[in-house]
């Protein structure tokens, strides 16, 4: 069993024997790092019932599965109805806005009427 003090956290972490033979001399023991056991902070009984996930559960693996589905749908529409709705609103504003803008600029370009 090999351990070293982590320079960042100041705690003990598992290490390979390399930490004990920095010059690269071959150690005679297996090079498997030892799983860390007592580096974790001690938990009191009252804390043990606390949920494992701090602030919500990890949904990333499900989302990865969903977004990596090979169905030919481009990434901006891949999540379904909500994506489509937002996309169509944006595209509608783009087309409508362009027309409105051209009209406004055309009117603004007219000479001022004499008062």
């Amino acid at each position, binding site marked *: 069993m090999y351990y070293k003090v982590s320079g960042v956290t100041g705690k003990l972490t598992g290490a390979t024997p390399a930490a004990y033979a920095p010059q690269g001399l071959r150690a005679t023991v297996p090079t498997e790092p030892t799983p860390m056991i007592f580096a974790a902070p001690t938990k009191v009984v009252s804390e043990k019932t606390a949920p494992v996930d701090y602030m919500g559960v990890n949904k990333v693996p499900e989302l990865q599965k969903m977004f990596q589905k090979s169905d030919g749908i481009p990434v*901006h529409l891949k999540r379904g109805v909500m994506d489509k709705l937002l996309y169509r609103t944006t595209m509608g504003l783009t087309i409508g806005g362009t027309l409105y*803008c051209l009209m*406004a600029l055309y009117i603004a370009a007219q000479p001022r009427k004499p008062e």
Partner: protein
Amino acid sequence: MAHQAHAFHMVDPSPWPLTGAVGALLLTSGTAIWFHFHSITLATLGLILTILTMYQWWRDIIREGTFQGHHTPPVQKGLRYGMILFITSEVFFFAGFFWAFYHSSLAPTPELGGCWPPTGITTLDPFEVPLLNTAVLLASGVTVTWAHHSLMEGERKQAIQSLTLTILLGFYFTFLQGMEYYEAPFTIADGVYGSTFFVATGFHGLHVIIGSTFLAVCLLRQVLYHFTSSHHFGFEAAAWYWHFVDVVWLFLYVSIYWWGS
């Protein structure tokens, strides 16, 4: 997408460059229409379209990176170069304002009274709120580094807490600057002192707000488990940007607030 023989990201066709370009057109034309005809319809439309584009484009980049795995090491290298070039361009943006400030202050014209600060200008005391602001930003630089190390060590709880603290310090800075602006004894219309002061510190303040938003997005993504201990470039980019904003403030503080008063 399934069987490509290289590590680069072949993007899907995207509508966002088009909607973004039109958003910019509406925003600029809308501002001109606003100034000439007092109608904010077009400018508002442009703002909404730009915000919709920003949201969906960045949302898609998160999908591509975090959910589809397109941000391979060579792609991340490209993102790094992109962010470095962007921050470099921002450095030159601010260099222009410092140039204007030193041009005006190192050889003050007779119209200013031949002195700096110009005759009639009462400056802010650099050792009151501006010094506190310096401390606040330096502290936020510490907390963002704490967040980075927590992320690298897989300390989820600490990363969330330190990132929250960084954002709160950013908001506190913005609040203090708002108070300073409100109480300042000069305005942007008070000659070259007011112009250089408010343009330089105003753009810095805008960048603090953008940086706080960037960090807030990172906090949300950290809560949603988007970052791993070895792959979190979105956070690193936000941290780089935050440090940049911090350094600009140090120059502003030393030049404009301290030496310039």
